[in-house]
């Protein structure tokens, strides 16, 4: 099965690591990371909390070559729309014709949506990676469900849309 190429922003990578899904995703995703996202992860890694720990692990994965990191000059059309991390990840998609941007920042996704549609880039949330692991048979529905619940718990997203969609799509009958 061919790997799907995707660019990840900081929020999505952290969510996946907190869910325990980032390393397993290497069997289905070829990740491309903008240098500005690496810089944001380095900043987060300075914090002594779960997010900081997750950022450290992601940086170690990038350093070990499991994910490609590249410098990106942000396109003028994207500058000022969103923060530099998301802008770089999105520009990377355009420059390298990457069809998928995995982004958990609602505000950023909303602001980039129009441009994304014009450029043929699909914006998905990190849960899509977990769903894909289940679709490809790498994980069972229960494993996917547990991963998303771990993410929800780590991020403080209880009683929200994700929990509802998780119950609807990933609960075994």
């Amino acid at each position, binding site marked *: 099965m061919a790997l799907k190429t*995707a660019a990840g922003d900081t929020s999505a990578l952290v969510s996946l690591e907190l869910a325990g899904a980032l390393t397993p995703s290497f069997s289905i995703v070829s990740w491309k990371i903008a240098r500005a996202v690496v810089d944001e992860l380095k900043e987060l890694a300075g914090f002594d909390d779960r997010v900081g720990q997750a950022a450290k692990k992601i940086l170690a994965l990038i350093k070990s070559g499991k994910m490609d990191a590249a410098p990106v000059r942000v396109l003028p059309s994207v500058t000022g729309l969103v923060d530099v991390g998301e802008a770089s990840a999105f520009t990377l998609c355009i420059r390298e014709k990457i069809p998928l941007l995995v982004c958990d920042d609602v505000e950023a996704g*909303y602001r980039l949506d129009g441009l994304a549609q014009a450029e043929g880039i699909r914006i998905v949330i990190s849960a899509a990676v977990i769903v894909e692991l289940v679709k490809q048979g790498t994980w069972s529905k229960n494993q996917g469900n547990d991963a998303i619940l771990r993410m929800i718990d780590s991020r403080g997203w209880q*009683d929200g849309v994700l929990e509802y969609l998780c119950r609807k799509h990933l609960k075994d009958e």
Partner: protein
Amino acid sequence: MAHESVIHVRVEPETEKKLEILAKGKRQVRSAIVRKAVEEYYAREQSLNEMKKIVAKKFAEGQILFDDLVRVLGYEEARKVAFFVSTAKKSFEQGLG
């Protein structure tokens, strides 16, 4: 007492003047005014986020319509919520496609 940090904030002259007026009127130091302002802003933002979470879930479940979202959150915030719900639903339905 927990360890306190000192932060530096740039403000316009008009904002500094307002801070002075507040501090004088309440007979408090400027730091106390700024601390209270940040605490109150944070609490309001948290309440707003909680409200957004509740209505977003009701919208995702089909219990309310987009017009209802607009009535509660205003048009721009309603569009953001609708975008998130649509993106989340497609992410669960299609995975990475």
